[in-house]
């Protein structure tokens, strides 16, 4: 379990990184390394050059301007969980962040790495789709902005070109508060199923993760009656191509949508502690 040989370069600007990526076709960005390094150790990926972007200061900021939340791609999962303004204005992100791996992984892993990696069981890809975020991408031709709904293409696959870098995520302030729920076998595992739910009053949207090959924001009615809601979740689920389709996977998807919906209705500290919505899986 040793990686194949590779070169390594550390950069301090996006331009430098893009240039290296353009010139060395098998180069890969390394951010937190929490997905890339295991893949390299298994020799499932063998980059010729690692471009270490951890020294790029410009990618490390969280800015809230009253309309948009802008998160630099190098911001760590734990920083998002702990960020006071995110907790206040986008509490669903703080709640979701705590479900990513363990503390040590959250301290290194980055939101940009998670989006670029595009694991369908990951929290961030679904969060950006659910919140209708835009992803800023920089390459040799400059910066382009991709709506999250168009960024993810399937399993571990995005529209990102090999010489492009995710630089930031821009998230508009949501009109309605979202709820979140996730189930994993053990604390910190990737989700068996998870959901973000937005209730706009009688109708809304559900975005699952761990269910299909990529996150999709599905419109649904949201009746008050629980049985009717269960029907609605099932219908919404019917629009997706479910991976490893099984009775229990569908069952969990419905349960998580329902728990996320209940979570969206909790107030204040309860919302952040998620107690009534099932809490951390144990």
């Amino acid at each position: 379990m040793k990686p194949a040989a590779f070169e390594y370069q550390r950069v301090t600007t996006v331009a430098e990184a893009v240039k290296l990526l353009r010139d060395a076709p098998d180069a890969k960005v390394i951010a937190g390394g929490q997905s890339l390094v295991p893949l390299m150790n298994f020799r499932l990926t063998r980059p010729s050059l690692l471009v270490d972007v951890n020294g790029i200061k410009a990618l490390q900021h969280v800015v809230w301007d009253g309309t948009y939340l802008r998160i630099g791609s190098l911001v760590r999962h734990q920083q998002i969980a702990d960020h006071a303004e995110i907790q206040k204005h986008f509490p669903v992100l703080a709640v979701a962040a705590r479900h990513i791996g363990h503390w040590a992984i959250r301290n290194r892993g980055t939101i940009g790495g998670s989006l670029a990696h595009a694991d369908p069981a990951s929290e961030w890809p679904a969060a950006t789709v659910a919140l209708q975020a835009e992803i800023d991408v920089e390459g040799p031709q400059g910066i382009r902005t991709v709506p999250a709904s168009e960024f993810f293409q399937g399993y571990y696959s995005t529209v990102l070109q090999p010489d492009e870098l995710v630089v930031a995520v821009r998230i508009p302030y949501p009109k309605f508060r979202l709820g979140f729920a996730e189930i994993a076998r053990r604390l910190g595992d990737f989700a068996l199923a998870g959901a973000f739910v937005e209730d706009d009053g009688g109708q809304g949207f559900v975005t699952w993760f761990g269910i299909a090959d990529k996150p999709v924001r599905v419109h649904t009615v949201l009746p008050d009656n629980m049985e009717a809601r269960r029907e609605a979740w099932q219908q919404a689920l019917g629009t997706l191509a479910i991976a490893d389709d099984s009775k229990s996977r569908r069952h969990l998807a419905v349960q998580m949508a329902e728990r996320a919906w209940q979570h969206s209705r909790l107030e204040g500290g309860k919302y952040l502690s998620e107690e009534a919505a099932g809490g951390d899986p144990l």
Partner: protein
Amino acid sequence: MTEQAMRPQFMGARVKRVEDPRLLTGQARYLDDIDLPGMLEIAFVRSPYPSARITGMELNAVKSAAGVRAVLTFEDCPILLWQRDSYQVGQPVLAHNEVRYVGEPVVAVVAEDRYQAEDAAELAVVHYEPLQPVLDMVQAIEELPRRVHSHASNVFYHKEYTTQGFSDAFAQAPRHLAATFRTTRQTAVTLEPRGTAAMPDPASGRMTVYASTQSPHRIRGDLAELLGWPENQVRVIVPEVGGGFGMKANTYPEDVVVVWAARHLGKPVKWVSDRTESLLTDVHARDDIHEVEVAYQDDGRIIAIRDHLMADGGAYPAYPFSGAVGETSLASRVLTGPYQIPYIETVIDCTYSNKTPLGAYRGVWGPIASFVQEGIVDRVARSLSLDPAEVRRINMIRPDQFPFRNAAGMIYDAGSYGESMEEALRLINYKDFRVRQSALRAQGRYRGIGISVFVEPTAMASSEAGSVGYESVFIRVEPTGKVTAAMGLGPTGQGHETTMAQLIADQVGVNLEDVVILHGDTDSAPFGGGTGGSRSGPIGGGAALVAGREMRQRLVKLAAHLLEAAEEDIELGHGQAWVAGVPDRAMTIRQLAEIAYTHVKRIPPGMPIGLELVARYQPEQSVSFSNGTHIAEVEVDPLTGLVQVVNYVVVNDCGRLINPLIVEGQIHGGVAQGIGSAFLESLRYGDDGQLMTTSLSDYLLPEATDVPRITIEHLVTPSAGEGGIKGMGEGSLIGAPAALVGAVSDALAPFHVMVDRLPVTPDDVIEWVTARV
């Protein structure tokens, strides 16, 4: 000996482990820390097929790759494990013409470092012609779809046993039930993986083998025999070992290849398993099926059990201990557990398959048999609508029945079976629980309690670690009065350096910090049987007591002579010897030792010079049973299928305790592993024979947050052996899975669930719950 001498100061005390400072500060030296000048490393090319004929190999590119020193195949190293031919099947240390499981070593690449070895190994081209794999043990018994070894039956071990009078008793009982119990492949997953290094010494011609093993002398004997060398040409040194759990009791193909390569290249060579290799090739365990029929009475009394025990032993019997045989043969003898069930009939079939060989994992047969035995009791209780605790009471062996001969002829020495259960029921507040349970059910919450009363045969004549029924201790009081003792045990984290020092310090009359315990070096340790089968405490500890006592007698004799007192009047303690009642007439043990080694004219006539001796201890009984009760309270979420362990109590009886702190640590670890067995761990093979769980993101282990606080109480029923000590290394993992899944059955009783498998997964629970609403 005087009254004072009998009162131990350290045995039974909560002494902190002397090992912990080095372990907790990262100062311990494990196998991979061994880095000798010029040391080469091996990477193995392993079989990607469960079964295939090897039709050719192209290895030139490997041989000419950077840093490569040698490329070995079976032609170079034609050694078969099981040359002794017990099973008509010998595993080649590198595949010979055919591969029989995914991960089987085929080519060994020896290079200057592991990176180069892995780079070169990738260049190997091996041509395979795939064969249909044998994957299902029930079919394998019928030799279907084919034989794993063309010249040998798939059934490599078959045994039948019937208690006299079984048929009539079974037929005449008023009630019968049948059930099939299935356990799933697991493996030990030690924190430190397997590894071996070997260093030839050109000057002496001897080979030093560094091995991460539980059985230093056994692996020395195995290597010497397999390689055809005299035993005294091999020295085995066991560095710090980060866990063994039975898995490191075997001698593996890689061990032999490493030593062979070191000899033929004249260089130190090392191989350390990575985690994927571990999951593929460390011995697997627990791949068993029990098809059970039970005869019982209306009052819950169980009369007879019939059991067809099957185990999938994998491609070869693991060398030199087949886990399949160990798991089934012992399970069949202790299947009735702590209950006085008079009749059993067992049929055992162990089969070959195209999977990794089955070996030992902590508890071996025990977690399986307890799961079956407690599952039977719970089924009887459910079918009669009786309280499961009450049905256990009715069947329990009573204290006046010891020594008790069970239906399979095993003799149980005294234990506290009923008492341990009553105490555990009290600790978990069983009476109130039923009230709480129904109140919670009304709210749609599903809590359950599982009771597991276990027996644990310990200190047996043979175990996975070897077939040596005794243990030896070499002890020396140094000229300065400090004590050094050496033993042939193979601790892998159990704290022998602490417990054995406690026993010896008491006997010799010195302080704990004055005793150093050496182990794991066949040049310094007397011959020993290693660590496994819960033998180190009762047999190794017994030997420590005997050796300590003999040394004490020598010191007393010497002191009596020098202090001009009667031997009966000499007392020893805190590094001193004195005349009882006259503390002024005293000498330090240091002074005595100095005389024993240097002023030897002052030694009494007939006493040997120096203070060194070897003592051996073999218990008179061939086995001593520990016992106890585990009770788990769980909450099952019927919506997610997740199980949370909310409360856990253990009442444990392992005879006289050497160190309660260490006993409790052993119990905590065993319960944690039990949670893994009950809910998480499973090595899954696909229909194509590929192992699908080759990393720890697929093979799930319990995490700290999965393990609840555990309440522990001790009962003490001493053994008849030295010190009254019984073993306790496995009981906690024997008891735990049965308690945990029994609790799931209890919680989901409204859905008519009776768990029949290990582990229980969220998918299972969802299936059971949604099928019945």
